[in-house]
């Protein structure tokens, strides 16, 4: 009999693993998911609500793809894993045997025990069901007179943009005193604050949620702000204060868990033949300055690519290259390559340049002792991943990077270039420093 590989979770991690296992082998593959029949792109959820796309457009593969590649799909919710009998038990009552199991169950939105957090009209924004919930409670500005978003991260600002697209007034509570400034250096974070306000979003910095109040039908009526005691009437509350691994159903199995499913560098759990990848996996120790849990698209994909090798007999470690990521803050695109922390660490300095139109800026982080280039954040200017990856590998110094910045430009043709301007600012800074 062919070895049976069962994957829980049809997100990017699970699907990438399945695709690569299929490429490398003839094993029997089953993907289990409780969320949707077919793989869709979670990152595109916002565009469905905004009307840019329909749900089917977010599916990266046509429906025939799975059969053609002999990947079985099963819809069902795994309630329990019996690692001794190598069997999954489903909430629907049936069960499934596996030879090797890959846990790729992703994340779930954080809830911090706020009073009223389970009322009707309160939702996270992670699963497709959350989107359906939003569609129900905020179809337009007549039904939803105001929405309050709690938590200023990447998903929070996407939710703000979504609601904005339907002209629903938004109050955006951000705990930090500037948007996402745990990650972004202040120049950038403040630019995004202004951009959010330019979109007529009621941005409340340094504010926390105290409680959510209910009307007589168990629906959201208003929220209270901790700091000021102010009550804001609203019909929808979006909870976007981060995500955490979606592993509650594993907690009483033999599989070791911490915040996520604990894995080693081979993405193996403590139980033989059980692996975990993607948002739900937690490394014992962060790799090369990375966090132990990396809840982003690319890392899920990379873990899938890697694990497929191991499962198909070519055992290799998960060994990601230079860090990169990207996002979009309303109209401003953001990319990052290498490490730029909100505040320079020891022996680090930042060079910051901002365009006068207040929608473009870059921050370059470098080592003050060696002058080595460590990373770049770029806003409103697209840059080439490959170029920075090469520069980081070659350990170029910051002068080299600034002088060759135009090689990394990835903006569409005929766009204005800012490299000369950036160089000028850089030289000026050196003179005054």
């Amino acid at each position, binding site marked *: 009999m062919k070895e049976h590989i069962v994957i829980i979770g049809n997100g990017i991690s699970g699907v990438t693993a399945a695709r690569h296992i299929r490429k490398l082998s003839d094993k029997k593959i089953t993907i289990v998911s409780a969320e949707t029949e077919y793989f869709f792109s979670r990152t595109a959820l916002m565009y469905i609500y905004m009307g840019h796309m329909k749900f089917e457009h977010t599916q990266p593969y046509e429906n025939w793809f799975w059969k053609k590649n002999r990947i079985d799909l099963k819809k069902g919710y795994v309630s329990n894993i019996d690692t001794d009998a190598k069997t999954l038990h489903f909430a629907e009552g049936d069960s499934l045997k596996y030879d090797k199991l890959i846990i790729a169950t992703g994340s779930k939105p954080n809830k911090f025990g706020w009073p009223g957090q389970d009322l009707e009209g309160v939702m996270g924004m992670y699963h*497709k069901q959350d989107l359906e919930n939003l569609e129900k409670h905020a179809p337009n500005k007549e039904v939803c007179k105001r929405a309050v978003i709690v938590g200023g991260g990447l998903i929070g600002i996407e939710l703000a943009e979504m609601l904005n697209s339907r002209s629903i007034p938004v109050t955006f509570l951000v705990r930090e005193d500037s948007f996402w400034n745990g990650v972004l250096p202040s120049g950038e974070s403040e630019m995004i604050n202004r951009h959010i306000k330019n979109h007529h979003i009621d941005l409340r910095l340094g504010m926390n949620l105290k409680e959510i109040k209910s009307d007589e039908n168990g629906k959201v009526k208003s929220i209270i702000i901790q700091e000021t005691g102010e009550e804001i009437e609203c019909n929808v509350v979006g909870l976007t204060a981060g995500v955490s691994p979606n592993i509650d159903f594993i907690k009483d199995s033999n599989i070791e868990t911490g915040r996520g499913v604990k894995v080693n560098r081979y993405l193996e759990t403590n139980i033989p033949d059980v692996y975990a990848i993607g948002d739900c996996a937690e490394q014992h120790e962060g790799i090369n300055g990375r966090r132990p849990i990396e809840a982003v698209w690319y890392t899920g994909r990379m873990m899938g690519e890697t694990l497929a090798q191991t499962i198909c007999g070519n055992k290799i470690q998960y*060994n990601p*290259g230079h860090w990169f990521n*990207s996002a979009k803050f309303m109209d401003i695109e953001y990319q990052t390559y290498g490490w730029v922390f909100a505040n320079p660490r020891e022996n680090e300095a930042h060079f910051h340049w901002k365009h006068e139109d207040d929608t473009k800026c870059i921050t370059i982080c470098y080592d003050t002792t060696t002058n080595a280039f460590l990373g770049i954040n770029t806003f409103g200017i697209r840059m080439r991943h490959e170029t920075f990856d090469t520069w980081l590998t070659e350990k170029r110094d910051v002068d080299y990077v600034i002088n060759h910045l135009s090689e990394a430009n990835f903006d*569409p043709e005929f766009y204005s270039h800012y490299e000369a301007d950036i160089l000028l600012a850089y030289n000026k800074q050196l003179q005054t420093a």
Partner: protein
Amino acid sequence: MSNKINHSMSLAKPDALDITNKQKIALAIGIIGLLILTLALFNTDFPNKGLFLTLALGLISGGIIIYSREAYLSKLEGIKNDGVWFKSISSRGTWGWIVGVILTAFYIILYFFPKYLGLGTDGAENTGLISLFDPLSKLLSGRPASQWFVYGTLYTVAILAFGYKFILKYRHNRYQQLRTGSVMFFQLGFAFLIPEFMYVMNNDLPYYDLKSVWPLNYYIFDEWSVNGFLSNGNIGLALILFGIISIFVITPILTYKYGKRWYCSWVCGCGGLAETAGDSFRQLSSKKMSAWKLERWLIHTVLVFSVVMTVAMIYTYLGYDKNDFWLTRGVFISLVIGFLTLVFAGVMYFKRQELGKDAKYGAIGFFVVIALLLIMHFTGTTNQIFYIKSGALRSAYGLYIGSIFSGVIGTGFYPILGSRSWCRFGCPMAAILGFQQRLFSKFRITTNGGQCISCGNCSNSCEMGIDVRAYAQKGENIVRSSCVGCGICSAVCPRGVLKLENDSMEGRINPTEVLLGNDVDLMDLVNKK
């Protein structure tokens, strides 16, 4: 854990976004303009036609301009696709179908029943809609309007007004603005004004839109056309030479350097209309694999048809005897076959690898054409080819491809099939340019390492139905014959993944399995081929 299994998987269709009062007024203004044209169509005899025509076109353009200013200038610069899949007109809703039916009906009348538009036949005066355009036609060229003049004027107005809208929509994107300015310029100048002025200078010259290249301009080598040019001395000769140079010299050079976009997205009138008036429908093109398969069969069949038809046309008016003119039927057929064989052999020799499975289809196509030409040569008589009257082939092409496919389906079905269905499924010019773009061009869409999040915005916006995401999520450059280089995929990508570029041919096609960002050894291992 909040896995809500029992929820329905369908998303209710939300209400379309409201338009503002100013936009409602703009719509009303445009509709009044259309109303004037409709009244003229039903034979209302306007007293001062010049005034009413100006009024009609002015109101339509004005309506579009006010509407788009309100839609885009009141917001910050950025991607403006909110609600396109909610609005009835742009999501194959009732309005989409209504507009589709009206457009299609208009094309059918235009091509087959121009008398209902008021075309005066046998020297009679124009009436109805066409007569409304008489003053403008007389102003430009001194002759009364024809149905084609009416069509050309409306076409130009559409490209100009919707072009303005498009420029506002993409006012953060220089590439979009420049190429739209370019198609507006070529439509107004080359397709509309210059032919009229050429007529004024020399009224025997056939209509010649200089930017329209064979095989799109399939009638340029017709006997009447060639005679028309040749009987006009040097200027005529120069024009027909320009026609030949356009396809054999200018086109290959520009396509090599810039890809087919230099034509399809910067010059061409069909493309121009699709990009401007058709912009709201771009997302409707099918991205399915099956549509791609259909596309490749259809467009290449049309190409074969147009090549054989043109050769046959020229063939019929060439003589048998060397003494009349050096180019006899025999010489001509040999030249054509020789040229095609050269191209075929060259491709097979240099590009066999890249073509992969497609090589087989290319070979079939090639041999079909050669066989057809030989059959024609050896069975043809003075007035028959393929055992039918020689003109019949040409008429069939004009009817089925020139009129029904490019006009009725290509444009009439914008709201159903998307804006570029003619360019994608039918245009033989696009097929030739695409063939070259795929094999001998510096153009490609570069993907940015591992940055793609598979969101699908690019594929959704591709009017040519290319599943851009399928490439981007593999970190593979997009080198597709059908890509017209409109650049919208790049514009809408929220992660800055796509860049249209002209660069060296080396490494242009770069299939990858493991993307940049992962373990370098793993990338080496898996991607080495």
